[in-house]
């Protein structure tokens, strides 16, 4: 019985020490991961700003008109086509509006 007490006591001491050391180790690890997270979040935020700036309507309109030669649809070029909606019907009097460009309807060139 006495022979068992000593190793058991030693084990307890080791467990206690190991626990403290591991806590410190994990503390450092948490701290490192937190820093990593901050850096990644910063990068994400920078990318979000970049994305928002790149998708600004000002910029898109400029590229559309200057680079791609697009222009605003002229009078009568956009036509709403009323089509019978598939079930379920929210209001029987309000048919679903579908927007179709005119040249597509008449089988236009482009």
């Amino acid at each position, binding site marked *: 019985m006495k022979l068992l007490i000593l190793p058991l006591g030693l084990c307890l001491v080791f467990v206690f020490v190991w626990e403290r050391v591991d*806590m410190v180790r994990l*503390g450092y690890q948490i701290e490192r991961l937190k820093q990593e997270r*901050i850096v990644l979040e910063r990068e994400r*935020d920078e990318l*979000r700003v*970049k994305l928002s700036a790149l998708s600004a309507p000002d910029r898109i309109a400029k590229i559309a008109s200057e680079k791609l030669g697009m222009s605003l649809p002229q009078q009568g070029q*956009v036509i709403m086509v009323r089509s019978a909606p598939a079930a379920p019907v929210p209001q029987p009097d309000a048919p679903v*509006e579908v927007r179709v460009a*005119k040249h597509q309807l008449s089988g236009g060139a482009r």
Partner: protein
Amino acid sequence: MAGTPLRGRRYVVVLLLLGGFGVVLFRLVNLQVLQAAELTMKADRQHQKTVSLEGARGTIVDRHGKMLAMNVDVPSVFGIPTALDSPAKTARYLSPVLHLRTDELERKLRQDRSFVWLARKLDPEQGRRLEQMPMDGIGVVMEGRRFYPKGPLLSHVLGFAGMDGEGLEGIERRYEPLLHGEKRVAVLQRDALGRTVFPKGLAEQTPTPGRSLVLTVDEVVQYIAERELEDAVARAHAKSGTVIVLDPETGAVLALAISPRFDPNVVAVLAPDRWRNRALTDAYEPGSTMKAIVAAAAIEERVMKPTTMVFGEYGHMTVANTVIHDHDKLGWMTFAQVIQKSSNIGAAKTGMALGEQRLYGYLQAFGFGQRTDIDLPGEAVGLLKHPRDWGRRSLASISMGQEVGVTPIQIVTAMAALANNGVLMKPYVVSEIRDAQGKTVKQIKPEVKRRVVSPETARTVTTMLEGVVTNGTGTKAAIPGFRVAGKTGTAQKIDPHTGTYSATQFVGSFVGFTPADHPRLAMIVVIDEPQGEAWGGVVAAPVFRRIGEQVLNYLGIPSGEPVKLALASGRE
């Protein structure tokens, strides 16, 4: 007696041991009890690091979640002049990265201080370059900088935040208590290398970020409004311009554009005049647009019907020893034609038929002379005098939009009430408040202010206002395929030098809504001091049409008129 010296030596040893223990005990008591407080403090200073943490400022997005304002951590550079060997060398080294002049940097670094800011809130790219060139006596800290990724878009509504992240204008200012993140001082344990050791109470140290705001504004509608307004102001060589687009049913602001625009990312170099939200702060005499409101009051009070005949006095009528003129020499006309042709004499007669108290009552009910309570800062009340302060000509003048001061937001809100079956709504720009995780904290519901006229009156006036666009002064506002109701206005500005009406400075405006049968947009266009032709029907009405047709198209609102297509040989 051999034991005696031995015993004596034993005593000496015991005494020495006791003395030794005594010294240790005394030291122990001295350190642990007497000096305990002071030493604990000293130890804490070495182990602990106090940092001030701030939760990120909330973001602002449009109604579809498109980012309009957000915070990004960027580097700020400081110097410790006392720790520098050669300020001149350091200044030369830093100058190209910080984009600052060498002599300016050197002057800062030569100051007899232990801390000096060299440059704050730099671009992330500059921060990366700084990281690669570590220097003694120079430090970098990260601070949240406000970015407005869309540049000038919606700038007058968004406003901007200052260097320390506090909202100074616009929504940033109005919602400052919600937007700003929590500030907290946290204590971290550090080791011999200065690394942070497992901090106490990890969770409670993270400061709460600010709330995020969702606006009622639609980025695309805003862009259309800004582009068309800028274009119109430039073409008319005008001083400034304003456009407000509302959803008449809810009072939600879909767009609020002011020209000239400014970039909230670079406000420091601009005069305050540039960022003033004129749509709310500047009252002007509305001129003929007021006739729409006077007409609604007259119809509601059954003083007039659209078919009531009114004599135009052939363009010349004397009131209180002054003469009221009309643009055309009009004779007999219906009340509908009074509005259609924007007759001053007809409007003056309508006001006189209503009487002071009733006219004043309706103007108050429509919201003039008081704030609309829109959730933006700096709103003016405008000017609506009490009848006891009216002069002999006031009744006639006010009926044609003189002697009153209104803000663009007031008049478009009043017009939107006519579009909304006679119910006045409170205009608003923030529709939702969210927490940092994107969860809704508060949904802002449309708010009814009051009913101002009956639905029948609203419908009757709408028909009369449609006449303005089909046959009257506002034909340039007509949007093909849609019914438009509205009213033009051309007001002379008061010359600040003479105190009388200026012959050269005008405000041209158009306020209306579309589609008239089921209004989805209420809009005002104000062009301030256009050069050349200043008529509201000429400078403002076309802007209404251009914005209106693009926005209706963007929102997918169907035209009231069926379109007949000739399809080629039955192919679909």
